[in-house]
């Protein structure tokens, strides 16, 4: 009986041996793997990986952490706020809150805005600049070639650091496309003249000037500069949404500008309403 079986399987013996050997190796290896998994296990909250999956993965650093993974870790382990992720926005905050069973208030979406309108034809130059086409470098050479010491130099340092290419140079002045802005704030630190601010997206009225010089000086160097006439402040007296900071009118971004007539009334036309202008 056994002999018959043996004669039948005789030609297949190498295959059987191989299969047997492979199976043994497989079992051995998986056993080793199982032991290794037990001994060398790193306790890791599985939620971290899943939260990381939920995050956009842009690694932009807007949350203040080294990257998305870092933020995910902070959210799960250290109870970091859920609304720090700017690219994810309110949707993500809600998703995270739902996933982690927490309540979180969505942060207001902020967008960057360049507070300058000194385009090539509006603002004058003090000298002919010859050197590296980079705002920070130009700013160090004689303080920049724009006659206005507050204005945008136009060498696109902000546009280069922007991870989503949301900044475009229009006529020598940086312009942010708000729909692409993920409010990571890189441009804010890149600008040597501190012209870029992160403002709530819902505010549509902006005063696009940063010059704190007196009116006549501003007028001398730029046709679009705030001359400190305080007209906008007077017109919005009740709502108190515009205030004077030195010789410069500024929007109080915690309020919303109701009286949009200031856009029309501003003498140098440096107030814009994005809902109209775009």
């Amino acid at each position, binding site marked *: 009986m056994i002999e018959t079986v043996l004669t039948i399987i005789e030609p297949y013996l190498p295959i059987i041996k191989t299969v047997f050997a492979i199976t043994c190796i497989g079992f051995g290896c998986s056993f080793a793997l199982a032991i290794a998994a037990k001994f060398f296990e790193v306790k890791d909250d599985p939620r971290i990986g899943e939260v990381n999956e939920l995050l956009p993965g842009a690694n932009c650093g807007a949350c203040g952490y080294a990257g998305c993974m870092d933020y995910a870790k902070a959210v799960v382990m250290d109870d970091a706020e859920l609304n720090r992720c700017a690219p994810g926005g309110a949707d993500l905050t809600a998703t995270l809150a739902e996933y982690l069973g927490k309540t979180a208030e969505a942060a207001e979406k902020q967008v960057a805005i360049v507070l300058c309108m000194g385009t090539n034809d509006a603002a004058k130059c*003090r*000298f002919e600049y*010859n*050197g*590296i*086409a*980079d705002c*920070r*470098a130009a700013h*160090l*050479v*004689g*303080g*920049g*070639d724009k006659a206005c*010491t507050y204005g945008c130099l136009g060498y696109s340092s902000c546009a280069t650091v922007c991870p989503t290419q949301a900044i475009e140079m229009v006529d020598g002045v940086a312009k942010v496309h708000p729909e692409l802005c993920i409010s990571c704030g890189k441009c804010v630190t890149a600008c040597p003249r501190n012209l870029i601010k992160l403002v709530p997206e819902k505010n549509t009225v902006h005063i696009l000037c940063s010059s704190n010089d007196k009116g006549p000086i501003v007028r001398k160097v730029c046709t679009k500069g705030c001359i400190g006439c305080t007209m906008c402040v007077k017109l919005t007296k009740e709502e108190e949404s515009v205030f004077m900071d030195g010789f410069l009118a500024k929007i109080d971004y915690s309020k919303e500008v109701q009286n949009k007539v200031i856009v029309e009334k501003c003498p140098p036309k440096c107030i814009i309403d994005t809902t109209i202008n775009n």
Partner: protein
Amino acid sequence: MNILKAKFKIHGGVHPKYRKELARDEETKRLPLPDILRISTTQHLGAPSKPVVKKGDYVKKYQLLAEAAGFISAPVHSPASGTIKDIVTGTGASGAPVTEIILETNNTSDAELTGVYPTDEWQKLSPETILNRIREAGVVGAGGAGFPTYVKLSPPPDKKIETLIINGAECEPYLTADYRLMLEHPECLIAGIQIICKVLNVTEAYIAIEDNKPEAIELLSKYLEDKKIENIKVSTLPTYYPQGAEKQQIYSITGREVPSGGLPADVGVLVENTGTTVAIYNAVIKDLPFIERTTTVSGYGIETPSNVIAPIGTPYQELIDFCGGAKDDVKKIISGGPMMGFAQATAETTTTKTTSGLLLLTAKEISQFESSPCISCGRCIAACPMNLMPAELSQFCEAEDFESAAANRVMDCMECGCCAFSCPAHRPLVQHFRTAKAFLRAQPKK
């Protein structure tokens, strides 16, 4: 003969066209007092001084305008009598905003000094008194950086200064102010050196002069011989730029290398500029505060290149007018020398204690930068007196990899400009390093 030849040769250096002949034989002239002086409170390195006068005040010549605001700072005195018109924010020579005191002069001489000491009496003063007088006179390094001399002359107690070097190299092209000073006032210079020697208790002093100024070498050595002064020697240096750089000069004369990031005091040496030495002389012996300095007005863009004594706060335009006015084809106005000076946007900028020169250059003389790619010819490396690799560093800077730039010692760069001077691709190397250094300085220290 007490002339010594420098023994050590530094690496690198370049030979720009010196063009010193423009102003070297011009007798130093005194500028008539301008009607308006705009005196900056940033005349020196360190904290800007604090104005002690206000709008509408009447001030007399030599009166204190602004006091030192901190240890590394220096007071500023009024160069003339007149009324303070305003205190405003203006632009300094480097382009940074500065506070300026606007003074309307009235050309009367109601100057008041605290008291005049006879020339020979300073020997009896204690070093502390002398130092104090130097501090109160607002003496700062006149070479360019403007480091307060009082601070420089008070080295930490654990560092003993053995050698004093008076920097008369004046390696920057065009400039001849120090040269004229050495020729015209050797007695002030030597007395100034003796004062510093006394303050620091130094026995050995060298006057370092490049060998393209034989008249100055001869005059000074003869003067020293006549007066039988043994401890001061004239040291001739081979002519090349940047011979006047502190670390390179120390190496040329003594063979000692100032460690990276260190001060000359670390190797027991102190370097003072000739202009500063004369200012020390004025402060200690004549009790005059630092209110005026010799400035070279030169370049092919000015009618008559000259050496002018001008009060601090003089607008450049006054100097230009005094020297016959600018020619039509002026393309660049430079405060300082052409290698390290600052280009000016207007002639409205004013002189300070550190303005060694005012150059009006035509398009033919100046260089234009291009950002063309590096062809790695290695000329910048051959020219760098600090033995850096400017070609590689500039690529790090261009890629904004400032950490790598710092690791390759961009902070050791002294911005002498030798690399950009010799770059055949006309790359703005120094500007790259300036940007990187500004960025690195702004970073918090780790």
